[in-house]
């Protein structure tokens, strides 16, 4: 309970009809038998599954606010691509360095590790790194914005006005976030492959074609890529919307919502990565 309450002096108690000076002590709150710690919070907690379902409902019934959707696609999907592709290109170069190092140690030609490099990029690095970048860029953007809307009571106002939050607010962000994740993963494969291949060509005399070779790539690899990209694309914006709604109204809400949105999104990306990788390991 609060402990910053002013101490209750004797002066104010039991005074007669004469008005006390302006700075009167507040009466002490009554102690009661009700254990307030056990009571649920008056503010309803946001429900992630309900948010996701209502957004899907809004999408399928065509109620999604087109203008908001276009704006979010531009802001979340397209504006996230440069940083995502840049990061993937960096990772492509780092991976190529490791591959070249291993090839030298094992006395095999650089071009022989190329296809394996590309396979690892598709299976693991493109989806994982693009997922983390999307969690940072898209997740922080959504969480900060929704957090600000909760902090300034815009969410409350929309709810009271009977507006469809799924169609106007959550839906466009969830859809644009999914698009951002899928685009970043797909284009990220190309960015990492070409960056690594060009780097190999420039520094060690490798061939670009070996580093973007589809020789080892099978249906399983594409399935891994697609499943991971979609899982990140669903989890990251959802975690961010949830964090914004849950924490935005609290003190320091915008900052707390932003960092919680990023952290939870990143963890979901990594958890989905492990779960999907392990599942496909067991599949025939």
């Amino acid at each position: 309970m609060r402990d910053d309450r002013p101490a209750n002096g004797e002066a104010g108690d039991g005074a007669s009809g004469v008005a006390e000076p302006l700075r009167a002590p507040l009466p002490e709150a009554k102690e009661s038998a009700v254990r307030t710690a056990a009571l649920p919070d008056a503010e309803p907690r946001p429900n992630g599954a309900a948010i996701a379902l209502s957004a899907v409902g809004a999408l399928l019934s065509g109620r999604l606010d087109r203008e908001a959707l276009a704006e979010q696609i531009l802001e979340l999907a397209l504006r996230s691509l440069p940083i995502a592709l840049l990061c993937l290109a960096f990772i492509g170069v780092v991976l190529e360095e490791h591959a070249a190092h291993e090839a030298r140690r094992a006395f095999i030609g650089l071009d022989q590790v190329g296809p394996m490099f590309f396979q690892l990029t598709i299976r693991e690095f493109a989806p994982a790194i693009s997922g983390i970048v999307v969690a940072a860029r898209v997740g922080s953007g959504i969480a900060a914005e929704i957090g600000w809307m909760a902090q300034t009571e815009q969410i409350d106002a929309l709810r009271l006005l009977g507006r469809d939050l799924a169609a106007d607010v959550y839906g466009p962000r969830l859809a644009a976030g999914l698009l951002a994740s899928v685009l970043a993963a797909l284009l990220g494969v190309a960015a990492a492959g070409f960056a690594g291949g060009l780097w190999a060509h420039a520094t060690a005399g490798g061939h670009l074609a070996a580093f973007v070779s589809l020789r080892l790539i099978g249906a399983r690899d594409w399935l891994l890529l697609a499943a991971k990209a979609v899982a990140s694309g669903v989890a990251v914006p959802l975690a961010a919307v949830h964090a914004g709604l849950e924490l935005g109204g609290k003190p320091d809400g915008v900052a707390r919502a932003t960092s919680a949105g990023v952290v939870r999104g990143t963890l979901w990306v990594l958890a989905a990565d492990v779960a999907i990788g392990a599942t496909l390991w067991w599949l025939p």
Partner: protein
Amino acid sequence: MKPLLGIGRASLRLLRGAGAYALLLGRLAVAARAMDGRELLRSMSVAGTDVLPLCLLTATLTGAIVVIQTGFYVASYGVTSLLGWGSGYALLREFAPLIAALALSGRVGAGQASDVAGLRAGEQLPALEALGLDVDRALLAPRLWAVLLSVLALTAVADLVALVASLLAGVLLLGVPPGAFLASMQASLRLRDALPGFVKAAFFGLAIGLCSLRAGLSVPADARGIGAAARRSVVSTLAAVLALDMALTGIL
């Protein structure tokens, strides 16, 4: 003509940005000699202890990811004996520091940037300056060096946890005998294999600290600026960490 102008403007902006970071680093290095020890400890508990659960979780997941990916190859070439070495080597050199830094750039970077922006929005920084307090020594330097020290400590923890997680994942998910896994780890891993990882971690820590402080100092000092600081910090730390990773992998 127009694209040329754009390139010129972008490179000027880049130079100006690099200069600002260098100045900030220099200022805070000088201030480090006389910084507030209590604030350093407090910042370390925020950047270190509070982040520990997140770091443990990411390290566990990373260990599992690396072993699963290595497992695909080991199984197809039938050389199970290499699994322990492969995952250990990859984890220590590359993935434990990288993933720890990526996770921290979200948590610490966003938190620190919005914290500093909040101090400015609440007019606490100007108030301290007006009182004649050296803000660099009292507030900024402790935050920067706390992140650096915390990232180093967390990398050590992440290395350990990720190795254990990779062992568990290898045994439970891939069915590799634990003895073979450990033997392969022991035979080929040296303590110095972890060294490049720590060098990277030190640079990552510095980058996270600098980017987040700069983001917090450069946004407008109001409520919306706090959210903007967090977002800007997350993106710039991410880019800095990955660029450093690329540069350092080439050197080390």
